[in-house]
C-alpha cells in the first residue's frame, strides 16, 4: 500500500468519521476539544451518565465542602466549541466491537468509527448496604454527593466520622476542623496517606491531623454503623471494641473503576481499569492492540517506562487533563505523528493549611530521605529511592522545588539526590519509607503499579472490609 493511501484514509476519517466519547468529565471534555482543534469535522457524540455538563472534582472536597463555592459551580471552563451531540444523563451499558456500536441504557445503539473510553471511577460504597442507606452516611465523588455532604456539615453535626485517611479523607477532615466540627478519622493502616506516601510521611501527616484537633485512630477499622429509629446514623463500632457517637459518616474508601459496561466486549478491562499502550490505544483481552478504541483518565492503565514498564493507573487530574488530549490527538493522526502519554505522575493536596505536592510513584520505592527544610516546621522536601535511583519526591509547603526532583526522576538520577537550595537538614540519612506490604489492610493509593500483564491475570486485589 502506498503511504498516501493511508494518509487519504486518515484525511477522510477526519472529515467524515464518527467518534463517540463515553464519559463526560475532564478527560472526555478535553479530548472533544482537542479533536475539533485538530480539524476533526465528523459527527461527535459524548455520552455521560451524569446530568451535569463536565465539571471539576478537586474543588468538591475543598472549596465546596468549606462553603466557598456551590456544588453546582465547578463546571469546567470550555476552551472552544465542540459541536457535539451531548447525551447526558444516560449510561452506556454495552460495547459491541463487531458492529462498532455503543449500547445505551435507553436501548439506543450509537455507531462509531473510533471510540474513546473515559468513564473514570466512582467511590467505593460502604460495604454494608443497609448501613450505607442510613441518613447521614456519605461518599464523595460527584457534585451531588458534595452538595448533600456540604448541607450535612453546614447543619452543625455533633461529630463527623471519616473512614479512610487517603488524600480525600484527610482533606475532608481538614475542612471539618476549619468549620469547627468535631471529627474522628479512622484508618486501618498505621497512619494517614501511607498507601501513597509511606509510613515516614504518614507519621508527619498524623501529627498534623492531631495538632489540628482531629481525633485520629489508626490501625482500626469501622465494623458497623447503627442508626436511630428515624434511620439516621448515630453510632459507629470500631474493631478495637470502642464505639463513637456520630451524626455524619463519610466513607472515603477509594474507588471502583467504571468498567462494567465493557464486560463481554473482549477488551483487556478489569478491576484495575482498561489496559492500553503508551499512545492510549486499548488492548484486547489477548494483549493485541486495537486501532479504533482509545482510553484516557482515571480508568486508563498503561505501561510506564520509568517503572519497569509495569502498567500504571493514576487517579489524578493531570493524567485525565493531558491524557484526554493525547488520546484525541492520536485518534486523528497518522502513525508517525502519534504521541505517547507518559507523564510523571503528579498530584497536589491542600490540608491543614499545608500544600502537599508530589511527583513519581512513591510505593515503587523502599527508601526515603528528607532533603530540604524542616519537618517540624512542615516545610520540607523528601525524595524516594529504589535500588540507588530516585523514583519519587514529595514536598510540604516546598512546592517550588518539585520541578527539580521531577527532572531527576525523569533521568533516573542516583538516590539519594544532591539537594538544591540551602536549607539542608542535618544528617540526611536515607531510611526505610515504610510502605505497607502488599495485602496489608490499608487503603490503596491513587497511583498504583499493577504488574506487567495487560489482562491483569497477575494483579490481585481484595478489598478487606472487616477482619484483619
Amino acid at each position, binding site marked *: 500500500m502506498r503511504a498516501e493511501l493511508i494518509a487519504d484514509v486518515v484525511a477522510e476519517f477526519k472529515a467524515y468519521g464518527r467518534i463517540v466519547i463515553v464519559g463526560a468529565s475532564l478527560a472526555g471534555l478535553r479530548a472533544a476539544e482537542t479533536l475539533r482543534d485538530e480539524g476533526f469535522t465528523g459527527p461527535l457524540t459524548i455520552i455521560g451518565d451524569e446530568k451535569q*455538563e463536565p465539571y*471539576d472534582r*478537586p*474543588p468538591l472536597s*475543598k*472549596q465546596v465542602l468549606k462553603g*466557598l*463555592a*456551590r456544588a453546582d*459551580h*465547578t*463546571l*469546567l*471552563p*470550555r*476552551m*472552544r*466549541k*465542540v*459541536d*457535539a451531540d*451531548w447525551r447526558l444523563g444516560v449510561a452506556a451499558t454495552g460495547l459491541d466491537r463487531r458492529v462498532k456500536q455503543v449500547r445505551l441504557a435507553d436501548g439506543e445503539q450509537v455507531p462509531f468509527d473510533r471510540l474513546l473510553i473515559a468513564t473514570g471511577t466512582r467511590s467505593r460504597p460502604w460495604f454494608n448496604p443497609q448501613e450505607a442507606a442510613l441518613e447521614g452516611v456519605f461518599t464523595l465523588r460527584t457534585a451531588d454527593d458534595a452538595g448533600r455532604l456540604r448541607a450535612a456539615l453546614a447543619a452543625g453535626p455533633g461529630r463527623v466520622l471519616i473512614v479512610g485517611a487517603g488524600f480525600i479523607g484527610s482533606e475532608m477532615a481538614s475542612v471539618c476542623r476549619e468549620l469547627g466540627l468535631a471529627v474522628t478519622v479512622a484508618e486501618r493502616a498505621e497512619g494517614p496517606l501511607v498507601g501513597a506516601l509511606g509510613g515516614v510521611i504518614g507519621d508527619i501527616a498524623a501529627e498534623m491531623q492531631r495538632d489540628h484537633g482531629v481525633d485520629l485512630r489508626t490501625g482500626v477499622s469501622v465494623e458497623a454503623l447503627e442508626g436511630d429509629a428515624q434511620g439516621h446514623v448515630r453510632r459507629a463500632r470500631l474493631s478495637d471494641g470502642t464505639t463513637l457517637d456520630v451524626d455524619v459518616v463519610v466513607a472515603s474508601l477509594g474507588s471502583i473503576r467504571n468498567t462494567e459496561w465493557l464486560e463481554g466486549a473482549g477488551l483487556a478491562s478489569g478491576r484495575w481499569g482498561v489496559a492500553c499502550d503508551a499512545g492510549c490505544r486499548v488492548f484486547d483481552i489477548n494483549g493485541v492492540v486495537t486501532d479504533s478504541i482509545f482510553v484516557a483518565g482515571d480508568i486508563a492503565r498503561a505501561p510506564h517506562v520509568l517503572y519497569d514498564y509495569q502498567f500504571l493507573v493514576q487517579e489524578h*487530574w*493531570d493524567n485525565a*487533563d493531558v491524557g484526554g488530549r493525547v488520546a484525541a490527538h492520536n485518534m486523528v493522526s497518522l502513525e508517525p505523528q502519534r504521541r505517547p502519554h507518559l507523564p510523571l505522575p*503528579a*498530584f*497536589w493536596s*491542600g490540608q*491543614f*493549611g*499545608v*500544600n502537599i*505536592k508530589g511527583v513519581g510513584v512513591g510505593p515503587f520505592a523502599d527508601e526515603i530521605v528528607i532533603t530540604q527544610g524542616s519537618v517540624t516546621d512542615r*516545610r520540607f522536601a523528601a525524595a524516594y529511592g529504589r535500588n540507588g535511583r530516585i523514583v519519587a519526591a514529595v514536598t510540604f*509547603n516546598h*512546592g*517550588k522545588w518539585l520541578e527539580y526532583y521531577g527532572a531527576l526522576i525523569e533521568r533516573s538520577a542516583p538516590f539519594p539526590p544532591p539537594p538544591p537550595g540551602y536549607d539542608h537538614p542535618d544528617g540526611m540519612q536515607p531510611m526505610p519509607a515504610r510502605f505497607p506490604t502488599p495485602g496489608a489492610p490499608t487503603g490503596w493509593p491513587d497511583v498504583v503499579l499493577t504488574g506487567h500483564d495487560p489482562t491483569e491475570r497477575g494483579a490481585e486485589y481484595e478489598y478487606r472490609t472487616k477482619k484483619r
Partner: protein
Amino acid sequence: MRMVVDLNRCQGYAQCVPLAPEVLHLHGEEALMYDPNPDDSLRQHVLRAAASCPVQAIVVDRLDEIGKSS
C-alpha cells in the same frame, strides 16, 4: 464565568492574588484557593491575574467568544 487553577503547575508565589483578590487567595503558606465560578463582572480581573501567572496555571473559559452552547 468558569475557571480552574492547575495546582500541579501553580508555584504558589501568589503574583495573581492582588490582581483578583475577590477570586484568588492563599490558604496557608502556598496553597492557592480560588472561586471556580466568579461573577462575570470580575472577568477582566481574572484575565489579568491569568496573564500575570508565570506558569500559566490559571485556565479561564472562552465562553464569551464561543457562546454558551456546546
